[in-house]
């Protein structure tokens, strides 16, 4: 199977910094995430993962540094151009308005059609709904759904946006085992079949190890480690990142971290 090579660029952050008062939440981060594949961002709470992702997605202004996506600075590139290139799923998905699932997902097409929904938009919307197993729930209102269904609806919106880069801020929130695995499988398929670049903030390092091509570990606002799952999933590296002892076992040829007891 030929992988569509729709992405050739990269997300490149240089000297990226965000401060709240004296505390640097993201502290002079320089990293390049090449296009293609699934990248997981891991690290303890408060490491700056979400803040980093928010700055890449233009949701948060940076105090210093810049982010370049496919050659364009996100701070200066036109908003709609970036919105066709990069989509983000946020952690907080509270809405003040009452929408059906299909209405929400259709908003994902706004960067393309500016609200005048075309037949192609509808096809993308139905595809995204189907991809997330939501077709039957399309007509339901979001406030009638469970947390996991809501989460999937928002992911469907990001998918319908049809961007080269898909940023997911803790996509496994609110998901049970079945849907968490489904979500990661979906990220994998989006990368493999559609040639998209998926960057996901994850808390479960085993999910990160099982599904990603690359893991970026953050700690105290800096990149603590970056490499393939095999390079990161080592007791010494994980212990350094999380400040706790983490045993790593090879189970069925996969590294699995045991940190429950």
């Amino acid at each position: 199977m030929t992988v569509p090579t729709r992405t050739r660029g990269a997300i490149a952050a240089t000297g990226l910094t965000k401060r709240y008062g004296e505390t640097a939440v993201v502290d002079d981060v320089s990293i390049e995430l090449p296009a293609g594949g699934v990248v997981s961002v891991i690290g303890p709470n408060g490491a700056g993962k979400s803040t980093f992702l928010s700055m890449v997605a233009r949701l948060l202004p940076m105090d210093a540094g810049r982010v370049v996506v496919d050659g364009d600075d996100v701070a200066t590139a036109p908003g709609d151009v970036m919105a066709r290139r990069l989509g983000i799923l946020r952690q907080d998905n509270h809405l003040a308005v009452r929408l059906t699932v299909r209405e929400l997902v259709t908003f994902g097409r706004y960067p393309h059609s500016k609200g005048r929904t075309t037949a192609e938009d509808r096809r993308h919307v139905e595809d995204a709904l189907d991809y997330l197993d939501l077709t039957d729930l399309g007509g339901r209102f979001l406030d009638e759904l469970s947390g996991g269904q809501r989460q999937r609806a928002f992911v469907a919106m990001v998918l319908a946006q049809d961007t080269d880069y898909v940023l997911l801020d803790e996509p496994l929130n609110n998901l049970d085992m079945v849907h968490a695995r489904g979500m990661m499988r979906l990220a994998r398929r989006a990368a493999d079949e559609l040639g998209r670049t998926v960057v996901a903030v994850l808390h479960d390092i085993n999910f990160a190890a099982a599904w990603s091509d690359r893991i970026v570990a953050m700690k105290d606002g800096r990149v603590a480690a970056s490499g393939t799952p095999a390079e990161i999933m080592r007791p010494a590296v994980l212990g350094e990142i999380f400040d706790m002892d983490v045993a790593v076992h090879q189970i069925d040829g996969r590294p699995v971290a045991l940190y429950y007891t």
Partner: protein
Amino acid sequence: MSVDVHPLDAARGTSATPGAGDSTERALRRRARLVVAGLTVLALAATAVYLTVDVRAGWEFTLPFRGRRVAAMVVVGVAIATSTVVFQTLTTNRILTPSILGFDSLYQLLQTSLVFVLGSYALASVGVVEQFGVAVALMVAASLALFLGLFGGGRRSLHLVLLVGVVLGTLLRSATALMQRMMDPSEFQVLQSRLFASFTGVDERLLAASAVVVLVCCTLLWTMRRRLDVVALGRETAVALGVNHRRTSLLVLVVVAVLVSVSTALVGPITFFGLLVANLAYVLLGSHRHALTLPVAALLAVVTLVGGQALLEHLLGMETVLSVVIEFLGGIVFIALLVAGGRR
């Protein structure tokens, strides 16, 4: 940029059937058509009743006289309804009205200081056009200063704008109260009649000017209706979908400032009215699309104002108390919303 491989098509050889299963949407659309048609009929009926019932002074006097009032109610109603809807969209909050920015307080301060400084007798000799011009200019200038000062700089918090508006409003109200206490009681009575919203005795030239301004503002908002739908999802989502949220916010705030200033300077402050019709529009439609909420809220405003005035003035024989009734109803809706919000 578009994908050629569609997961569905590739994997299962089927194609999604667009429109399948969106019966909810169809139902909403049918409901919207019904609401718009019903309200249009009601608005026309209310206007007809207001113009024609209980005519005593002869048609050639009554029609222009009442026609002017109806026009004033339509202009003000549309201005307040649309400004409230888009203001709530911008703040993603259903219980806010633009009056939170202190428009009413500024208007009251202006009127109070005019009466206080010039005296009601001297004030009567100042032309209405001049008074109107000063009031509008002052309110628009003050709000522009507030928005640009807080929004134009490095800080970009809408909540900061709202908070400063609340604080300034309190300050202005206190100054107003101070002057009112020191005022001659008979002067105070003159002032009080100026501070109640009233549709009687609206100057024709002002009405025409206001109508043009409101029309321009509404046209602008109408062209932005799809973008406003996205803005209603909140700042982050709107930015992620490519909307220039800062520029849109600023534009909407300026339009709101103009609309509220014009309507307040024309008839006086109406605080809760916008809240009433905006929320009624959301409930009736079950949708937040601005292509629907803007016209429906405006129609509701016309129905409420003209219908209410017809009822009170011609059927119950009362004069100029409509604003009091509307404020009362609006206040009740406000409390109901607070209670409902608290329960959730």
